[in-house]
């Protein structure tokens, strides 16, 4: 997208969410939307992260606690299933890990540069009561 200087911006600016008319965005799934390049969906905040959440599908019970509390719309859920993390928009806050109720957790924080497969191979065992 072409960026312009502060003194070239008109007073009062309209930013389009979509590049074509969308009748009611609540009825269109994100993957079917014609996002305009002025929609922050097309941008990334991945470089904010120091730690990243890694998701372990094998333990997840699809409770959607992580989905409802993620401040960055970065837990992707479809048809009542949690299907993964949107690493373009996740800021690595760690809220999803805190609210995940499984034992061991289905989401854990790892260093941003760690390999996800490797992280999954080091997943902790189930904790016993009082541990």
């Amino acid at each position: 997208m072409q960026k312009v200087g502060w003194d070239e911006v008109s007073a009062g600016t309209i930013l389009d969410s979509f590049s074509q008319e969308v009748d009611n965005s609540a009825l269109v799934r994100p993957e079917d939307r014609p996002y305009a390049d002025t929609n922050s969906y097309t941008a990334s905040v991945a470089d904010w992260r120091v730690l990243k959440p890694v998701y372990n599908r094998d333990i997840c019970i699809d409770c959607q606690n992580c989905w409802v509390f993620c401040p960055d719309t970065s837990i992707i859920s479809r048809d009542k299933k949690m299907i993964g993390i949107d690493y373009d928009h996740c800021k690595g806050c760690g809220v999803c890990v805190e609210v995940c109720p499984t034992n061991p957790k289905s989401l854990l924080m790892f260093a941003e540069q760690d390999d996800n497969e490797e992280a999954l191979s080091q997943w902790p065992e189930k904790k016993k009561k009082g541990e």
Partner: protein
Amino acid sequence: MSKTIKNLKQFSTANERFEGAHLLCPGCAHSMIVRELMNCTEDNLVLSTNTGCLEVSTAVYPYTSWDSSWIHIGFENAATAVAGAEAMYNAKKRKGTLPNPDAPVKFVAFGGDGSTYDIGFQWLSGAVERGHDFTYICLDNEVYANTGGQRSSSTPIGASTTTSPAGRVSYGEKKMKKDIVGIMGAHGAPYVAQVAPNKWKDMVKKLQKSLETEGPCFINAMSACTTEWKFDPKDTISVSDVAVDSLVFPLYEIIDGKELNITYRPKNILPVRDYLGIQGRFKHLFKPENQHVIEQWQKDVDARWEYLQRREEARV
């Protein structure tokens, strides 16, 4: 028409209308609240936002994070802007010039506590008094977080802010938090409520009720602020849990300015000390010379809870 949302699984099928890569801090409760609002209805939304964290972070040129019509104007004008849009919508409907007159539309304004309790209060009061059909949601983080953490009239006693700093001669903010829910209830608005995003079910129910209610509705939403309350971003939900369980943020609603209902009663009421102890802004209160402030806090919270219960019983 509101959707029926019985559980989280069902809630999670909503098509998100608030996009990522906004620039709110990691762990910010503002976006949790906005997402819960935009995901609890499938109606078209016309939204406005006062100057504040939410506004500066979600419309950073050249990007918008909103998938619904949204306007930002002045610090004081979220209520006015949305009231104007609502009035125009009704006029066009009357004249038959709306392209899609049967599509359900809801009007919602967002403001922080700075713009709601202080700077935009007169405009909010006016819009509610005129009776526009809209919902005003205050994202209450008890501070001017966007401009560097100055106190607002929502800042509670004892909090250290950049304009009420704690130090050798002061224990921080000296004044009590303004009772905005009571004030809005006193307008006789048809629906006024206090919510917290961690209690999502209670919150969604109240948000849906405010959208369905005709006339002006007011929601005060607790928004735990990791930057100014000074806690780790991952703890937004646990701090919010302690806030409602210590009754620092009681959850209740007021209907037509009269009927008050408490909507959440904690099973184990936590001491206010637990709430203060997990936030850096209250750290200095734990010095021996400031113990009286903690005692005062507890007394105030107890008195407020007693008041709410009596109002609930009295139905007046």
